[in-house]
């Protein structure tokens, strides 16, 4: 999952980004002002936008309006130091999905971020299953019939992204975009390597579910017919 944090308080943005990376395994980009934020959100396909309300250039409300005007459905979580209900109503009506008032609890922020991403992908509970595999987004663990599968963080993120869209073809480019932030060197063969490792680990526990490579098109999480 890839998240954009638009926050002019650089330290706060840094803390949020670090927490999202460490605790959720998300790729996080940061923007310091509204104009950069909206440009990045338009250019890149994010899974969640985290916006501060008072921003230089363009404020949070302006960003929400501009993004929604372009039919972009990315979930938006607003961080605000103001909690006047009028403003909250205006924000939600403009298309924001949720808001948190500063100073917030970092744990709550992470939980809300994950819930919003889940909802946006049409899932309401934190545990996703495909075949015999169940993926717990809270614990960030993957089990096959109760047996823990030991995955590297990148492998987990890869599986998490694919498991939200079983049987759909996901291009290597999309995976790159959603799993890594701007600071990462983009090499599609990195994805291939991680997919190959993940495939091996799933096979090791005897799981029939597998990640199929469709040459030139991408990857697909494929479970045996009876299990889906």
């Amino acid at each position, binding site marked *: 999952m890839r998240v954009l944090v638009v926050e002019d*308080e650089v330290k*706060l943005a840094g803390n949020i980004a670090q927490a999202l990376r460490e605790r959720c395994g998300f790729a996080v980009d940061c923007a310091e002002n509204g104009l950069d934020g909206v440009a990045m959100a338009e250019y890149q396909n994010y899974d969640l936008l985290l916006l501060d309300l008072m921003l230089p250039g363009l404020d949070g409300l302006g960003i929400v309006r501009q993004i929604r005007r372009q039919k972009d459905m990315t979930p938006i979580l607003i961080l605000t130091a103001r909690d006047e209900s009028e403003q909250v109503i205006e924000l939600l009506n403009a298309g924001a999905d949720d808001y948190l008032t500063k100073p917030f609890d970092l744990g709550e922020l992470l939980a809300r971020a994950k819930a919003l991403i889940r909802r946006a992908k049409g899932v309401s509970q934190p545990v996703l299953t495909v075949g015999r595999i169940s993926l717990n987004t809270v614990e960030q663990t993957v089990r096959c019939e109760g047996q823990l599968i030991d995955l590297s963080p990148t492998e987990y993120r890869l599986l998490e992204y694919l498991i939200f869209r079983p049987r759909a073809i996901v291009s290597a480019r999309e995976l790159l975009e959603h799993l890594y932030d701007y600071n990462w060197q983009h090499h599609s063969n990195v994805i291939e390597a991680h997919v190959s490792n993940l495939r091996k680990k799933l096979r090791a526990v005897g799981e029939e579910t597998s990640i199929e490579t469709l040459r030139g098109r991408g990857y697909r999480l494929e479970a045996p017919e009876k299990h889906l």
Partner: protein
Amino acid sequence: MRKNSLSRQLIVGVLLAEFLCAALFSWIAIEHEIHGRRRAFDVVLRGRADSVLGAVRDAEDPEDNAIVDPTELVLPKHDLYEVVSPSGRVLGQSPGPALLAALGSAPTADYFDFRVNAERYRGYRLNGMRVIDRDDNGGIRRPVTVFYAAPTRNIWNETLEAVRFYLVTSTLLLAGTGVALIWFLRRRLSPLQELAAIAGRVSTRSWEFVPPNIVLQTSELAPIAHSIEELLAGLRESFERQRQLTGDAAHELKTSIAVLKSSLQLLSMNPRTTEQYESGLENLLVDTERMEDLASRMLALARLEEAPAESSESSDLYVSVRNVAERLRPLANLKKISLDVRGIGTAKIPIPTEDAEVLCSNLMMNAMQHSSADQYIVATIDLHDGVTELRVKDQGDGIPETALPHVFDRFYRADRSRSRNSGGAGLGLSICKAIVERSGGTIHIQSAPGLGTEVTATWPVAQADHVPSELGASTAH
């Protein structure tokens, strides 16, 4: 406290004027009435005296005297008359009290007033010539004097009647116009009440003030309505600014706390190495210091913006500038910025030393934050045209023209994302402005993007004992 009612005052005033008018009119009318009646009375007296004269007859006695024949006279029964011959003989008189006897002596004037038994009389003396036995030779001419008097009681009675009529009419008119006046005034003053009602509905939640047309069309009320409108606009603006300010302050504080809290939670989220904890704690300390700085700046500003200082503390601007420059010099050297202090040796300003140093350090720190290596910052103290002037000039990147009017606003940052990184909360210049204006001075800023910025603070010179000395320069490096 009893309130003065404008309409009551108006009604009372108009009624009082009406009453005075009525009284004056009544008085004149009564005077006129009395005068007229007196004249008529006198004419009547003369007429009656004439008819008495007409009743003088030859007495056909040896002296060939004349007498008054009362059978020919029809006179009011209270009237008195007496006819005398030039020799003083009474030729005839009315029944009742003797007229001349009551007078004492014969009056010389044509008209005379007297009393008989508390009854007032007015009399008339008629010197007439009676021709008796008129024939071809002209007859016998007998001069006689007729004294005729009538009681004046009736004039007074009639006058009183007239007075009563006038008084009753005036009173009725007064009452009638009073009622009409009250009704009229109430009706005419209704725009005033409407204005008051509309003005009363204004509150901090609803600033709407739309005076009705009837108010705007009233020449006395339109200026009031307009000034209320202006006043409300001003109030609203300052109220909004205040609210904006409180919001901004809350935003700054909450953001600061959010940084601190998230740093703490981040540190405790995952197990960390000792080094990570150490650097985390260091970071937390920096965050806390920033918050402390923000809080102390906000408090300083609140203190400065309270009522003007009572104390007449003053300090030497030159000393403050020198001290601050010395303190900032290591930082300036580090950034390779040249920091100069120029100007007169002593310049008293009505600011406590502490505030003067805050002012100087804010201005110089600002200049330094916007300067880069090998640039100059010059702080000049000057005395001219009766003012003490402090100028801090830098060669930095300047301030965009659009931002210039707002730089003294609290929490204003021309380039927010950049100044956030440099740590300011946008209070520095606000504090400077508060310090300078509190002491009766003025501050203004000039800037040319790309060329630099100059902030000038001026104070009127209180005493005349400041003598500009030689320009002493002290230069860093």
